[in-house]
């Protein structure tokens, strides 16, 4: 595997391998010496055309933990904001010796375009492209689910039989897409809950169920409820009328949290709109995996960088 563009490309064996290696990286992060020499001498270029402090810092931490050198390029104040094309930016990075390019961009398809363009020889890691995919987020999410649901016996296992609900703006969510492909590969059953206006128009081939309210989805007694961030701009485009209506039908409130089985968890990729898609006290409860998702994020990204290394067969 030279690049990680989409979780759709991962076989079950590859996906489980990544989760297992993530577990080993979590161990490393728990020790006194949190670093490994694995990528010593290599350069990881974080190329973030779209603002995202959390993901960028997470990738930086992962690269540093593997002893790689890190260079970061963000859109503001860079040559990109002066109109340099994506192609020229990448070729400059290549000439400066980037071995890995971690790419975040607001246009769907950019990571795939870069990986197949021939503009660079580096490994490409998709850190989020428009509304298309965010594969490392899905990996850390799946790892979080597996750890919480199966615990210590998790090594070598997928998420077979787990019942996952993803609620929110599915149509515009790269987190949702990456999660759907990966969770299906790992054997979970996925239900998408959203108003019809926020579901993509044709998902008959996605292998998921849909529910039009969160209560309907919770009738299925899920093991995981993943809440997605709602962008408030959607209200002005007619996707739903108001925040109160959204949280009334699709918000993860305390009442809904109380309905869940004891072992069920509530997830959020962050940043959260407390009170809109998730109630504050639910976010802070024992069920919530929000902070461990962040911790697992560094480990998952270490696992990805390691797994892309190595001779391509």
């Amino acid at each position, binding site marked *: 595997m030279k690049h990680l563009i989409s979780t759709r490309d991962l076989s079950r064996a590859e996906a489980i391998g990544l989760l297992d290696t993530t577990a080993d990286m979590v161990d490393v992060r728990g020790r006194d010496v949190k670093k490994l020499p694995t990528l010593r001498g290599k350069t990881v270029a974080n190329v973030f055309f779209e603002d995202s402090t959390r993901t960028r810092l997470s990738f930086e931490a992962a690269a540093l933990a593997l002893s790689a050198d890190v260079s970061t390029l963000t859109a503001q104040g860079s040559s990109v904001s002066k109109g340099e*094309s*994506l192609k020229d930016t990448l070729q400059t990075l290549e000439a400066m010796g980037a071995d890995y390019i971690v790419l975040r961009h607001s246009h*769907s*398809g950019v990571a795939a*375009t870069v990986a197949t363009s021939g503009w660079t020889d580096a490994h490409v890691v998709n850190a989020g492209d428009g509304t*298309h995919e965010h594969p490392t987020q899905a990996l850390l999410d799946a790892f979080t689910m597996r750890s919480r649901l199966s615990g210590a016996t998790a090594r070598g296992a997928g998420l077979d039989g787990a019942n996952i609900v993803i609620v929110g703006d599915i149509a515009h969510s790269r987190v949702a897409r990456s999660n759907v492909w990966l969770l299906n590969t790992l054997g979970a059953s996925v239900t998408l809950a959203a108003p019809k206006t926020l579901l993509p*128009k*044709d*998902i008959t*081939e996605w292998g998921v169920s849909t529910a039009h309210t969160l209560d309907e989805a919770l009738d299925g007694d899920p093991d995981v409820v993943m809440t997605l961030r709602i962008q408030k701009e959607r209200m002005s485009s007619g996707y739903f009328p108001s925040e109160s209506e959204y949280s009334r039908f699709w918000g993860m409130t305390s009442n809904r949290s109380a309905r869940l089985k004891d072992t069920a968890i509530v997830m959020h990729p962050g940043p959260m709109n407390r009170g809109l898609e998730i109630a504050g006290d639910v976010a802070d409860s024992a069920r919530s995996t929000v902070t461990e998702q962040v911790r697992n994020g560094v480990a998952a990204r270490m696992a990805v960088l390691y797994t892309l290394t190595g001779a391509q067969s």
Partner: protein
Amino acid sequence: MTSLVVRGASILGGDAADIHVVDGVIVGVGAISAKADRTIDAAGLIALPGLVDLHTHLREPGGEVSETILSGSRAAAAGGFTAVHAMANTSPVADTATLVERVFDQGVTAGFVEVRPIGAVTRNLDGEQLADIGAMAHSRARVTIFSDDGKCVGDSLLMRRALEYVSTFGGVIAQHAQDPRLTLGAQMNEGSVSAELGLQGWPAVAEDAIIARDVLLAESVGARLHVCHVSTAGAVEVVRWAKRRGIDVTAEVTPHHLLLSDENVLGYSPLFKVNPPLRTFEDVEALRAGVADGTIDIIATDHAPHSASAKDCTWADAAFGMVGLESALSVVHATLVNPGHVTWDGVARLLSTTPARIGRVEGYEQPLTPGSVANITLVDPSFLGEWGVDRLVGRSHNTPFGGLELPGRVMSTIFRGTETVIDGRIVDELRTA
């Protein structure tokens, strides 16, 4: 006096005959014994009337980096065309008599095809104020087709007025049907592929609803309407319904919409980014059926050249459009002739006589008959080859057909008696025949 004989061509796919051309006019079709200055051995080739494109973007003035009237005319000739209609969305927009006359004159100077300027419906394509329609109709360019193509005439009141006003001068509006509000930020067809790829969808209803509105508006004011680049099954049904009702509507389809679908977008190559977008296989089949049953009247290329930097980038940054003049006949051959939907006689109607009629272009009424202007295209139907950038003659290389095996090859194009393509190659300089 100069003369030319085409020897042994299959006339419109039928019996072989010779064609005798003297001073740019066909003087005889049959067994020609007279000696001529030039003889073209056309054994095994099919003779068609020169092709007429109702929808081409020549980019000049303003977009010369991607195409000029000269380079576009050459691309057209290479594709077997002898007349093209040049869309008005240039820079500046062709919305006055002076501007359309300039395009007309440059077409004459280039000399490879008849360039018929299309005039804008609204000033600067702003969708608000009518352009100088009458002046353009009465100019040297004698504009008969008016279009804001690139943009839709979206306002219902303005479209109704425009339909009426254009009909005053015997012209027709060619509408680019795209509801602007329903397609804000749209990148590709709205469907399962756009759902997977996370690209903003361009819903079919945004095209169908505008066409439905327009045919009823045309009916209400008794005007002609032409629908550009029909791309959906729904649009075909609306046009079929309108014709049954007696509405004077004509419709065109592009070659790429007859062959490619939104599945081509998987992989995000901007070579497949076009407006209207590539649709589903069901739409492709409906379009082919629509051509076969006459609902769709003509094939028009919507040749849209773009420079490399406009396509060698991310999908969202890329321009919409594909070149199509050089490949049109081969794609029609592959998608309509080979599967048996249309005969070569039908190809002549779709690509020559009917577009000429809609555009009121003279000289195509009696194809390949004595007395008519010598606009002739000779095709080798047995040729089969991989399409590539090497087959392109225009300035831009944004073809979506690269790597595909396509049949047929234009061996000869004769424009008013002058050869523009000889032995399958565009001539470098025109020698008046």
